């Protein structure tokens, strides 16, 4: 469980994060979604006690992060996969963490195995790792203490498609077994694929949050008919606001039921009728963050 309460961070006149509030419940994956420089990383660093907030606070497992006696055993954190000593081997990096947490050394091998880093990779220096391998190592580090909560900043960065697919499965499984996951991404598809609760942030503010279904519900209906021209006339006649999609379909700002009724009244044959879903969320993401500054925050 993660509770973020009105977190705010100002750097001089620049407000990086303003009044961010959200909750991550056990059994769910929360996707922290926003363009670069929106304040995702700053928020996550504040949750983990790395950055002192200007105002507000956050608790993980019921306590402020800094008050946790052995956080590695409760919360797995991956804030930056590149933040590893280039001269240490992957195994050594994990061994240091295992010793700090008081975790059995045997778990190091198990964690490496779980993220798909083999014996050869484990013996190499982190400096020779690709970004994808560093992400895997960072994930191994986060999982090492067998935590109930995961906080991951852009974990899909640098992973190949197979790696991304694997990570989704791992996180989904983690949440399905009662764990809490908070991950950030600037890629909508990524969040959509794994998260059940998107929290959209832009310009340091939360611009939308809720269940994915709720957010998607506001995104409209996608409809396609055999006779596209007749469909357009029908929608016009029924006064349903519609925009033509790129592939002959229409996105209508109405419930699927209303659209279906209008089509049935006109005796139209529909080939597709469904909530606009991902296409809608993408539009939502773009509109919600359009006004927000996309400049990288200067720290």
């Amino acid at each position, binding site marked *: 469980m993660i509770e973020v309460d009105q977190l705010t961070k100002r750097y001089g006149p620049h407000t990086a994060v303003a009044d961010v509030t959200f909750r991550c419940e*056990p*059994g*769910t994956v929360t996707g922290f979604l926003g363009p670069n420089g929106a304040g995702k*990383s700053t928020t996550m*660093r504040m949750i*983990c*006690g*790395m*950055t*002192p907030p200007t105002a507000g606070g956050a608790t993980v497992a019921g306590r402020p*992060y*800094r*008050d*946790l*006696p*052995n*956080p*590695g*055993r*409760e919360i797995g*954190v991956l*804030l*930056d996969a*590149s*933040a*590893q*000593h*280039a*001269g*240490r081997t992957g195994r*050594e*990096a994990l*061994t*240091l*963490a295992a*010793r*700090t*947490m*008081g975790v059995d050394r045997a778990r190091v091998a198990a964690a490496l195995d779980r993220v798909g880093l083999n014996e050869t990779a484990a013996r190499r220096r982190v400096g020779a790792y690709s970004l994808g391998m560093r992400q895997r190592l960072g994930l191994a*580090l986060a999982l090492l203490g067998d935590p*109930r909560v995961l906080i991951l900043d852009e974990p899909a960065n640098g992973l190949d498609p197979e790696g991304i697919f694997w990570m989704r499965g791992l996180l*989904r499984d983690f949440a*399905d*077994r*009662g*764990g809490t996951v908070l991950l950030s991404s600037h890629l909508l598809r990524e969040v959509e694929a*794994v998260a*059940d*609760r998107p929290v959209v942030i832009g310009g340091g503010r939360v611009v939308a949050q809720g*269940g*994915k*279904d709720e957010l998607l519900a506001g995104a409209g209906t996608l409809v396609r008919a055999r006779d596209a021209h007749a469909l357009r006339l029908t929608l016009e006649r029924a006064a349903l606001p519609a925009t033509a999609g790129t592939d002959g379909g229409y996105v209508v700002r109405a419930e699927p039921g209303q659209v279906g009724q209008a089509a049935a009244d006109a005796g139209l044959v529909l080939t597709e009728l469904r909530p606009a879903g991902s296409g809608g969320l993408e539009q939502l993401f773009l509109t919600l963050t359009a006004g927000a500054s996309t400049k990288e925050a200067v*720290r």
Partner: protein
Amino acid sequence: MTTTTRTPAPPRPEAAVAGPTLARLTGVELRKLADTRAGRWLLITIGLIAAVIVVVQLFVVEAPDQTFTAFFTPSLLPVGLLLPVLGILSITGEWSQRTALTTFALVPRRERVIVAKLAAVVLAALASVLVSLAVAAVGTLAAGATGGAGAWTFDWQLLPHAAVFQVVNVLMGAAFGLLARNTPLAIVTYLLLPTVWSLLAAMISALREPARWLDTSYTMEPLLGAEMTGGQWGRLGVSLAVWVLLPLVAGLVRTLRREVS
């Protein structure tokens, strides 16, 4: 994927979340001193330099003067020059390699990490004195075998003095590292500041008296001998308060407040 109600996992037993002890953290920090190629070579270099000095002594010191003390004392100086680098790197390495992000995620009470680091480098400094003793012993045996005096004369007062000398050296490095947080800056400041201070003191007569209390190269010199007066200890204490304690406290405060990214 839809949001469904899932049963929360049972709370984990309290024992699993007990924090690491300072001894455990010190062990981790000791390991960090040696688990990279750079760190390992620094330690090896410190050992090698002590050995080289002894070999040089075998050739340059007159045979009758080749005693245990004659081998031990000179080995302290070059080692004392490298120990601050060890102290600096143990602190600044966390920032330059950005491992602080991992370290402080596991131990959010940063002061515990710093204390463990200081303990680790102090232990390393004490170990260096043992190395000096060992190479001096080998030197004495070699001197005896090659026609030198090889006498085991040693004033035991020298041992605690040597230990203080090396511990101060490593702590001064760590203090500068803590304050500067940047390896080159810390090393340059550490090497330059005392020299500049000595130069100024030599040029400006008004600084000569304060320099006797503040110039560490001057106040630490008696530690290389067996005799030390109360006045000398006093001057040493004052200089260390300025060059070790002050940067240590300021650096600690800065580290506790600093944003880690």
